[in-house]
């Protein structure tokens, strides 16, 4: 697709470069800041004045976090729940959204109200806990991936996305006698890669960082997640100083703040590594091949 670059193009492009560069810098700097803080001694950080590089370089924060055992099982569990949970949620939510996006679907008004009400009203933690108990999900891997299988927010987003897909797209397959479920998997999903990539990223990140279910709904130590372990460590580093040992603890080179900051870096790192692989789906023209082909 060759196009002549007009003056308008040049002006807009330069402006774009400058603006985006500024935005990039603004959003990057605070992250860079916590990155260097994670490599800086906590007590030294408390003096302030660190802006470009660590002043008192140390790996102490990292060794402090990883010193405790049980990280390998936590890592496996977290990885598993991220992949399985994101996968299940994307599939199930898209399936339901696909159904709901059909033009002329009977009772669609009713369905929508049903979903929207569920999205807004909650019975609270107590009844939810009892439900999980009754379903036998407590203390199992299932508690991480099953209750979140239908994401109501993305249900709505997916519906609007699917509505944009022209109806003809499945026609030839339908005429050949393919079932709707088949069409969903073989035709609709491949064409919705930007949606799937987005959902996978959001759901995946949510799974990766989720700690509340691991804290409240799981007792088995081998089933705990990484984020739970980090919250534990952070809690322990916050021993109140109304206690002499607390004050002594506060004397170590590692402070509550430096531990938190390091935990942040550890949580973000995998996501930063994964996302570039998903980025190629965010390219205009994904629909091009499928309809014409």
């Amino acid at each position, binding site marked *: 697709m060759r196009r002549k670059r007009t003056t308008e193009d040049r002006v807009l492009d330069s402006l774009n470069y400058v603006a985006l560069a500024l935005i990039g810098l603004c959003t990057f700097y605070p992250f860079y800041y916590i990155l260097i803080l994670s490599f800086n001694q906590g007590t030294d950080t408390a003096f302030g004045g660190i802006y470009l590089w660590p002043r008192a370089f140390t790996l102490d924060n990292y060794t402090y976090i990883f010193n405790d055992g049980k990280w390998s099982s936590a890592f496996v569990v977290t990885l598993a729940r991220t992949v399985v949970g994101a996968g299940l949620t994307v599939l199930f939510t898209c399936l339901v959204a696909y159904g709901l996006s059909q033009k002329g679907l009977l009772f669609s008004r009713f369905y929508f109200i049903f979903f929207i009400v569920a999205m807004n009203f909650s019975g609270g933690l107590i009844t939810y806990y009892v439900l999980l108990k009754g379903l036998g999900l407590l203390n199992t891997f299932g508690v991480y991936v099953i209750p979140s299988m239908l994401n109501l927010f993305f249900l709505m987003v997916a519906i609007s996305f699917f509505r944009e897909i022209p109806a003809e797209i499945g026609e030839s397959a339908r005429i050949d006698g393919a079932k709707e479920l088949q069409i969903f998997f073989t035709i609709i999903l491949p064409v919705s890669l930007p949606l799937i990539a987005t959902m996978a990223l959001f759901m995946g990140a949510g799974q990766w960082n989720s700690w509340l279910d691991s*804290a409240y709904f799981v007792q088995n130590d081998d089933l705990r997640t990484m984020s739970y372990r980090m919250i534990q460590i952070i809690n322990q580093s916050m021993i109140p100083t109304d206690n*002499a040992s607390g004050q002594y603890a506060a*004397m170590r080179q590692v402070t509550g*703040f430096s531990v938190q900051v390091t935990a942040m870096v550890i949580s973000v790192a995998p996501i930063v590594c994964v996302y570039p692989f998903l980025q190629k789906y965010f390219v205009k023209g994904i629909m091009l091949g499928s309809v014409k082909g």
Partner: protein
Amino acid sequence: MRRNKSVKGMLLLLAALTVGVVGCSSGNTKGNEPAASPSATSTESAANPSSNEELVELSLFVDHSWYPTKDWSGPIPEEITKRTGVKLNITVATDEKQLPLMIASGDLPDLVFTSNQIVRMSDPKLSLPWDDLIAQYAPDFVVDEERIKLNTANDGKIYTVLGAYSTPEEWAQYPLATDMGPGVMVRQDIMDKMGNPPLNTLEDFKNVLIRVKNEYKDQIPLVMNPAGWIRTYFSSQFGAANDGLVEKDGQLIHFLRQAELLETYKYMNSLYREGLITAENFAYKNEDQAKQLALSGKAFAYEWTTNGAETFNAQIKANGGDYSYTQIVNQLNDQAAIYKNSAGWSGTFITKNNKNPEKSIKLMQFLFSEEGDRLAKWGIEGEHWNWNEQGFPEMTYDKLNPEVQNKLGIYWWANLVGKAVNEGLFYYTPGTQTAAAEVDQAKIKVYNPYISKVKPDPDSREQVILTNIGDMLENQEAKVYLAKTEEEAVQAYNEMLKKAEDMGLADYEKWANEKYNEVKPN
């Protein structure tokens, strides 16, 4: 076409993973019973030849998310297990919502150690009364009269004996057993440079701060630790109770009403008006921000605890600093007083789900005894500590270091049902500024633990009033401190009092006095 295949492949892989992982994990997950309750217990016959009894494993929930030791490991817990036949399987709370959730859903473990939910747990629906258990299993478990009175719940039974408390007799027995209180420290090097002006009264203190403000422009004269210590030292100097209820002329009043508190506010407001404290100090979210000023040499005086100077000096030295703090040991005012109204800190409850009440109550008995408490807090005599003739234990290990404490499993499990004197003795180190400050402070302490029994039901109207007043105070206090003139400060104080009245302060006090008449000893 190729694209479709790869998508299909990806989906198949996902499906396989789902089945695989879910299948695998459920298989490996221990305790994945349909009931799936957190009270995992098991009775194993002792492989330990030195014990004749069966080893019992009990689950314990610790309702303190910051608890530094989170498992039953180390030579001390092992010794306790050897002597009681009980091993504890510990879960530390992630936050303060976890226990109420467990209570509401009926999923309590064998033992619960909490301070936030003492009144709620003292309920026959949730816990087993100790009196019954003692009568049935451990008739030789004797608890002193005072503790019995202090720990009696609304229905007349005892559901726990709170740890971290000692009777006046116990304190008298061990004069070196002190505990931490509020304190203030000053930069010794600057004091020296100023020729060591006197620091005997509150006026002296203010004058020294003013001198620092004028002569040392880069110093903040006074920094206050914002994590609950802002008012504490000064209210102690004015003899005002810092929170809760206080007895005046035979009646209980809410601490807000005290004339001494108004004096405290006026003094602190004058510190602000003289430019000796900063407004931002009141906005710090955590103490690191205040500490940073001290450790980087910007704070002349720092309001915190009796062992603050010691703590800072160690750290300053470690950072290569060449200055140090001195704790102000003597009181700055004749009417100084500190009200100790607590009957303990946190207590252990034996829940209705408890699998082995006999072993549980016997464990409590052991940890309450002098032998058990000292073992749990200090270690094994001869190996970890030796008694010094002056009246305190000398530890053979670095007692304040949390890593050492963790490795030995020492000190923290004693809190389940231990005595405060033994804590005080643990911390005592002769010749330190801390010891001097705390011993001096012990003279001004006023004890009335029965006030702590005047606690409203968590869901009652009185509790709501109390909390609302507390929240209002937190938000409105700043206006008193930061008033532009003394008249304005007094006015702001009066407004707070009026707001409290509107919230039902008088009703709360009336209820409190009635309750106090029921529970106080005659």
